[in-house]
């Protein structure tokens, strides 16, 4: 629907705004690695769509908060300048549910944003100490 300007939006419509496509993801706020949550596979689809999970067919996603998801959350937090916790904390979920461009943030695992500029190894010994590399800019 197109509205020439904000005042052209009918009141009845303003009072009945439908929920956003990702509002239900807020239910995952507070989820942490190593546990299982109903429906978490849908969030993995989200992360795969935007390039944060690779090499996994969506039909195989489980509801486990596994290493792949934790790695995706960390890369996402890095890209969006959030505290890198690997958990679906409130600040992270507030970003995840925001409307956004459909173009992936990470393409073919090679780009981009902040996480592409770090040598970020997801092994446990490096999670708290990502290595920073300078990039010619």
């Amino acid at each position, binding site marked *: 629907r*197109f509205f020439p300007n904000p005042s052209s939006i009918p009141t009845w419509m303003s009072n009945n705004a*439908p929920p956003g496509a990702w509002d239900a993801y807020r239910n995952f706020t507070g989820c942490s690695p190593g546990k299982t949550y109903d429906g978490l596979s849908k969030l993995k689809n989200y992360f795969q769509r935007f390039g944060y999970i690779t090499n996994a067919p969506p039909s195989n996603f489980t509801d486990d908060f596994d290493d792949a998801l934790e790695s995706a959350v960390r890369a996402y937090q890095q890209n969006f*300048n959030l505290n890198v916790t690997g958990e679906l904390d409130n600040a992270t979920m507030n970003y995840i549910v925001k409307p956004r461009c459909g*173009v992936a943030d990470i393409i073919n695992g090679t780009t981009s944003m902040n996480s592409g500029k770090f040598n970020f190894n997801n092994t446990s010994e490096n999670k708290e100490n990502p290595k920073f590399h300078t990039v010619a800019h």
Partner: protein
Amino acid sequence: YSFFPGEPRWPAGTKSLTYAFDPNENLDETTKQVFANAFNQWSKVTTITFSETTSFSTADIKIGFYSGDHGDGEAFDGVLGTLAHAFSPTDGRFHLDKAEDWVVSGDVTESTLSNAVDLESVAVHEIGHLLGLGHSSVEEAIMYPTISSKTRKVELVNDDIDGIQQLYGSNPNFTGTSATTSRDRDSSYGF
């Protein structure tokens, strides 16, 4: 700023690109002007200009509003969620989600509808992709991936300008008066 893998761009020497709207949409002139304004944001700072053509099939950039699965493997998801997507050079496809409540002009921040999305803000962002820019982590940048509803953001910042000028050079008339971002000013930031 970032680029797509391989840094695809329009061929060297490209000075102008044409754009056309899917004729099935029959957009009014006010809406078309929003896209013209969005293209102009990029023309002001770089070497490429844009002009509308009525020939959808031959246009360099093809703009359309579509719902759900529309045949490019990137289905839209209804209200909010993904708002639009565009392809890297030289593909030219620029798709917007027909399910959104698009506000064409006026102050979208005054909207009483919580889902209202500013059309020009999204258009400026997607044109960046059409020209070869990927997403940026600079929150003030046009190429930042998210935009809240009832938000207007149409002015390029230095991060966007640096990126596009890296690809195509600077418009000789550009005076470099764009606003800086907090990251530009943060000398402790190491990149």
